[in-house]
């Protein structure tokens, strides 16, 4: 198992090298002077000249590239054009908000999606199946930000059941340890703060969960339907095993493999979706920060955040591969 992990980690290296080349090339491909791109439109000529000097934009490209990689390895990812804050700092500060949202959304998608897909496959052709399939098609077709606006209008503005923005009411004086607000509330036993943070998460995470939910439902349904037709399921049934044992040990365990892969692939989409969802709900995570960075063409932030998100995405897919090895022993051998 350890060799499997190490080998998979080794595969990350070419991806990271490729990404660094791409992001390096990207800033240089931006229209106009790269120094101006890094500093923003309103930079003075002196500042531009200083950055040209500091970054060595007049040196040969390969020297510039190795200097860039060197600074990445030292943990220097550049600073925001607007407030000059290091990209790493803002990312770490804002990451918990996004992670909380993404985890909540993924939780909804999996906890609702897998059973729904399973039930649909078990009741193929009946009303339940039709409803689940049509619902999932509609879920994929609805733009995330439109759904987010709609949820906000109905449940926050009209009905007033749930808060419409921010991560916690400003009136709540919560202690923050990890910046994961729900976790903080639990750790410090400030239950009202935890409940309040959960209430703020409900609408955004539903909005963000729709697409992964729809996709998980469909993959689970297709996968369960296929496994149910396998010979070993028929054998298990004819041996007289109870329906429960057959579904748990034979159908679900085999049907979950493609579902696990899908869940991993959705993780990347969650980060993209977070840009839109966080913006609508003002959650102040990395998504909203990225949105603002796009708006003011803050290239160091974009460059750093894209790199971080790609790394997280690759790590999640690594975890998925490992989970695969746990669920399916055949993978470990090959």
């Amino acid at each position, binding site marked *: 198992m350890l060799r499997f992990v190490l080998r998979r980690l080794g595969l990350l290296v*070419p991806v990271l090298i490729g*990404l660094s080349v791409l992001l390096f090339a990207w800033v240089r491909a931006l229209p106009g002077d790269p120094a101006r791109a890094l500093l923003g439109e309103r930079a003075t000529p002196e500042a531009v000249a200083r950055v040209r000097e500091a970054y060595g934009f007049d040196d040969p490209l390969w020297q510039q590239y190795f200097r860039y990689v060197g600074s990445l390895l030292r943990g220097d990812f550049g600073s925001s054009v607007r407030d000059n804050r290091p990209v790493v700092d803002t990312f770490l500060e804002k990451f918990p908000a996004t992670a909380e949202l993404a985890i909540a959304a993924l939780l909804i998608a999996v906890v609702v999606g897998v059973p729904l897909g399973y039930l649909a496959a078990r009741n193929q052709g009946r009303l339940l199946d039709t409803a689940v399939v049509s619902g999932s*098609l509609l879920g994929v077709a609805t733009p995330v930000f439109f759904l987010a*606006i709609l949820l906000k209008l109905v449940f926050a503005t009209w009905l007033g059941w749930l808060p419409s923005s921010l991560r916690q009411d400003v009136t709540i004086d919560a202690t923050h340890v990890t910046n994961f607000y729900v976790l903080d509330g639990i750790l410090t036993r400030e239950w009202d703060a935890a409940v309040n943070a959960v209430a703020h998460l409900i609408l955004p995470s539903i909005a963000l969960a729709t697409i992964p939910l729809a996709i998980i439902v469909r993959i689970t349904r297709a996968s369960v339907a296929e496994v149910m037709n396998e010979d070993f399921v028929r054998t298990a049934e004819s041996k007289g095993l109870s329906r429960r044992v057959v579904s748990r040990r034979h159908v679900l365990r085999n049907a979950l493999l493609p579902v696990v892969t899908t869940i991993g692939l959705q993780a990347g989409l969650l*980060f993209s979706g977070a840009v839109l969802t966080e*913006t609508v709900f003002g959650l102040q995570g990395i998504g909203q920060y*990225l949105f603002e960075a*796009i708006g003011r063409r803050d290239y160091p932030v*974009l460059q750093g955040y894209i790199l971080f998100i790609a790394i997280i*995405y690759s790590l999640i897919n690594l975890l998925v591969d490992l989970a695969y090895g746990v669920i399916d022993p055949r993978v470990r051998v090959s």
Partner: protein
Amino acid sequence: MTIPLPPSGGGAVSPESAPGTPGGATGAPDTTAEDRGVSLWRGAFRRLRRNPTAILGAVIVLAFIAVAVLAPLLTSYEPGAAQDAGEITPSSVPGPSPDHWLGLDSFGSDLWTQLVYGARQSLVYGVISTAIGLVVGAALGALAGGFGAVGGRAGQWVDTAVMRIVDLWLSIPSLLLAVSVAAILTQSAYAVMIAIGAAQVPIFARLLRGSMLAQGRSDYVLAAGALGLRKRRIVMSHVLPNSIGPTIVQATLNLATAIIEVAALSYLGLGTADPAVAEWGRMLVAAQDRFDESPQLAIYPGVAIAITALGFTLFGEALREALDPRSRR
């Protein structure tokens, strides 16, 4: 697979005449026809016609295309042209009236006109960006798949090298990739199309490569090789044509994604800034400030995007099912 034809049958067996012709001894008429070698696409078309989901999808898609093409006939106003800006107050926009039957938007343009011309934008953006993704992705996929299928050891090396690049491409979430590309190209309509197309490239590349590798292992490719056909000929006239089906289906499905992503890029402020261009995503952005008092400004374009995307999804799914050999019973 030679087909014994009745003397009057003439050339190819048409789907209509096939069930009536003698020859198939067993099964329903359709099965008979399919057993006699109806082409994959023709058989798929017949299954599509019997599938209500496919018809619903096709109706939505055709209606969308009709609205987009016939936009100037469906409204007498110009997109982006202010009608009676005087009636607009910070808290309300004029509702439906005989002249403007969906009312006006917050800039004083006729809402119906904006919606109709928005369909045009979505169609153009969606089709062109998907075409970009399809062409580049299929080229990469064919390169990897072709070399991987018949190229031997050196071919596998090419396959691996191309697929590493595609994997890298895929490691950046598509919306971020689109945002990065749009940022390089400065704000323009082309930037949006190239950006969304670029994000679709890896999907097509992986899909085409996968099906080409699968075809490469089949007997007829082996036979073609044994007959002494050149490798390039085997790939171009045997492997590729037999592998392209799933990629075409994916393109239909990707049109739905592309239309949503065009709106998303607009929403993020990366779409066109030209006020004379009506665009559903930008309509949503503009509607957000007035959402509490005039929700219709957001609901119409939002529902328009959702229905259009649903139409392409339904049709694409049905097409995939119809082309899947396992669904041909």
